[in-house]
């Protein structure tokens, strides 16, 4: 069971959270101008990396906030969590910090 560092509540067990899919999938500002292909990709295409994945979790049994998380899908290590609305972090920098 993962120990997830909620940006608002600190380390809490995975039982308190709900996974919420890939992060930083921005809803197009004006969906009416997207092509069918672009819209289908927004709906259904998600990355499936072997390595760092930026994803969302929601602390349903705690603060109930959605937040973002960088997790390595191979080792299951969580490298960073940060509040919703903040920009995508520099992954290379995160990897470097983790090795120090």
């Amino acid at each position, binding site marked *: *069971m993962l120990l997830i560092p909620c940006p608002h509540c600190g380390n809490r067990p995975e039982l308190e959270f709900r996974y919420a899919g890939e992060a930083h999938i921005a809803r197009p500002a004006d969906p*009416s101008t997207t092509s069918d292909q672009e819209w289908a990709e927004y709906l259904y295409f998600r990355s499936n990396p072997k390595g760092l994945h930026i994803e969302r979790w929601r602390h349903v049994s705690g603060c109930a906030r*959605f937040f973002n998380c960088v997790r390595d899908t191979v080792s299951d290590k969580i490298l960073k969590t940060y509040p919703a609305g903040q920009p995508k972090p520099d992954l290379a920098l995160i990897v470097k910090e983790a090795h120090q």
Partner: protein
Amino acid sequence: MSLTLRATRSGRVDRTKPLSFTFDGKTYRGFKGDTLASALLANGVHLMGRSFKYHRPRGVITAGSDEPNALVSVGTGARHTPNLRAPQVELYDGLVAQSQNRWPSLSFDVGAINNLLSPLFVAGFYYKTFMWPNVAWKKLYEPIIRNAAGLGTASNEPDPDHYSTRFAHCDVLVIGSGPAGLSAALSAARTGARVILCDEQSEFGGSLLSELHATVDGKLAAQWVEEAVAELKGHSGTVTLLPRTQAFGYFAQNFVGLVERVTDHLAKPDPKLPRDRLWQVRAKEVVIAAGAHERPLVFPDNDRPGIMLADAARTYANRYGVRPGGRAVVATAHDSAYQAALDLKAAGVSIELIADLRHEANGPLPTAARAAGIRVETGMAITGSTGRLRVNAALVSKLGTDGEDAIPCDLILMCGGWTPSVHLFSQSRGKLKFDEARQVFIPGESVQAERSAGACKGSETLAQAFEDGFAAGMDAAAKAGFTKGTATKVKLAGVLDAHGGFLGAVPHPHDAGRVKAFVDYQNDVTAKDIKLATREGMRSIEHVKRYTTTGMATDQGKLSNMNALAIASEALGKPIPAVGLTTFRQPYTPISFGAMANHSRGDLFDPVRKTATHAWAEAQGAVFEDVGLWKRAWYFPKAGEDMHAAVLRECKTVRDSAGVFDASTLGKIEVVGPDAAEFMNILYTNPWSKLEVGRCRYGLMLNEAGFVIDDGVVGRIAEDRFHVTTTTGGAPRVLNHMEDYLQTEFPNLKVALTSTTEQYSVVAVQGPNARKIIAPLIEGIDISNEAMPHMSVRLGKICGVPTRLFRMSFTGELGFEVNVPADYGQAIWEAIWAEAQKYDACAYGTETMHVLRAEKGYIIVGQETDGTVTPNDLGLDWAIGKAKPDFVGKRSLTRPDLVKADRKQLVGLLTVDPQKVLEEGAQITLVGNPPAGTSALGHVTSSYQSAVLGRSFALAIVSAGRARMGETLYVPMPDGPIAVTVTDPVFYDKEGAKLHV
């Protein structure tokens, strides 16, 4: 009962406390402190089971949890527990045990015919044989093969025991309590750190409990253990001691699962105690002191009862005071077997010969053995054995020769060396490394906050185990923040170092194709099976493992992995580290389903949610159904009524007079804020800005892909306040969906969302007399048709209690829904019920609710929809605000797939024969008997008998349904096709006049 097989020294067994037990119906005597294995051996019983596939007679070969052969069933009735390892079964008075996988008896087992037919049962046989004809596999071969092999049988009765779980946190978790584990626990505890020490055995001490000669700081090993445990107990505020507790799994971030066997060793356990206790431990630091497993030698017929591991025999002698036989031959490639020979000789066993595979054996232990007069031959292999239900001779052969000598004996001890137990380290995802010099895998790079100590780390001496342990405990405590530890050293004496080891199959002069040299005892995998696998093209160890099933039994390859790997590596011509090991899986040894299911059984499986009127409904004799986690009254049968009759009566009464219904379970969400209307516009299809305060609207919610996911009536309480309702089952999902958009897509909107599902009780009053029923109770609201039209909401009081009164209908009759604070729910229900009696109104349940709404063509999300249905499919385009530039799902509604002409659309169906009631979910086709492979046009979504129509009716979704009005279609059923006519989905009061009275 004679004690001829009991040694003079009784070890840890208390011979002042005799016990009686049965094995396969025969009564034996044992003592407190015995295991089932030690007591059986003391009674001269070696035959304890029959092997999985070949039904070969088998005896116990270990003294611990790595036992592959002596799998027994213990207990009777509901507590009959199969597949326990005899060395782990603690004896108590009255214990009932049975052997497994044999019929009619252990000594005469018909299944042994498998052994004669063994050429048919080589590895992977089911990929090559028993395949033709196709149908015979399911009906004939598989059942026979399944019955012919196997382990124990489980009880069919419900588990009468309960199980508990604890979450525990500590600074240092120490797994294993041998010399390394106890030292680690001591040095960590002395720093003041919180320590948990667990061991799968009933006593702490591990290998020290079999150690007779060594002294630790001048004390005998047993004495040192006693004092160490006493000291640990003294740290009662910070140290938790868990014997009988297996660490079965190492998970993420130092989350380790332990199972404590609380009552299995007790004859009459306190029923208040759980049988097993699951400990879910999050440790800051972990010390793994799991020890090492002794390895068998792979030689022909190495599995007869009476053949066991050398150190296991030493344990039976030293710890349990039992002589496992009278005359022993020892076959070894490691010095430790010489210590076993010396200890067994001291206990009264005659050692006929020590046959050492190595060309030279000159270490201190072989020297001591020779000095004690034991015959030692080097460069000698054990190449076979004889005896049927008990070994009666060992066959030995000088390496490089073909001659074989038979040495009569009733006990063969084998030692191929020691395999560090790296299971838990591997589960932690650490990387193993192969130690070339010692030919073992040991922990390499850690990825979690753990370290190994002692034999599991590859350390080979007792001195090293103590040193490792003290250092590991101190390091763990320091990393957890307890830095004031002091280094500890102990002074050892009386220990002779032991080295050596051999991997793979022992060379022999026989035809390799005709002999069985067992590698994996539990799954009956032989050396030739592994070679066969490589000949058949299995290159990866993963394929070799799965093709032969070596290492896949409940012992997870503890005794077999390294020998299997060595044989495969030689056959493939690749070095061992290049072939590699397979993944070590949790659990380390089997754990009970009870420990895992734990409290989640019966009434505690899921929370149960009840409404304020639940007790009233129960008293009225209501039958309940589950809707999500809620209990809802399904129907209220009167005396003599079945469900069918009750529902018809309830439906008729509602439409003729009135009915009262508890609608409290539907989700309610209060949406509040200056941007509330804008937020609602985004989340629903409807245009909310123009909805006046005090009016309601049927809200339709889509997901971003354009499919209906929820619906419900929404009332505008104020400019900035909406009372939103959802389906019962969908409430948490809808709120989550709303929060997702509010927090992450539109965080600038000033809106707050609050779940109020449990805060309001909702009493629905439906039927022509509905207004008359509530009128006397309402204050402060004009509920006339003119002042309060259909689909409006008013604030006022009912019986002095504040209410949000909705005029809305799910039945198609005049209707109101009274919302009151839930604490008043029961009282208000009873007040309304009292008024309703004046009109012979009834209470109705969810079944009637379903029928009445279906007669009006009102959909139920999850019944008419399945996540792939659009508003247009349902004929609900009117609910879409056409002028809205954007809402969740809007863009998808114009995707090509969502505007296809042949999409399934909501229609009504009337069976041509009005007596026939269609089955929900039944498929609809163009012709009555379509050929196999024909796709259905759609399916029946709701189907009922209608009181008001006097016949059956149904709703369905059918391809291009709206263009098929009046067409005849078919519903094929096992008894024959049912003809149906496609109709409008509204069967009653199409104009809606009844709603506006």
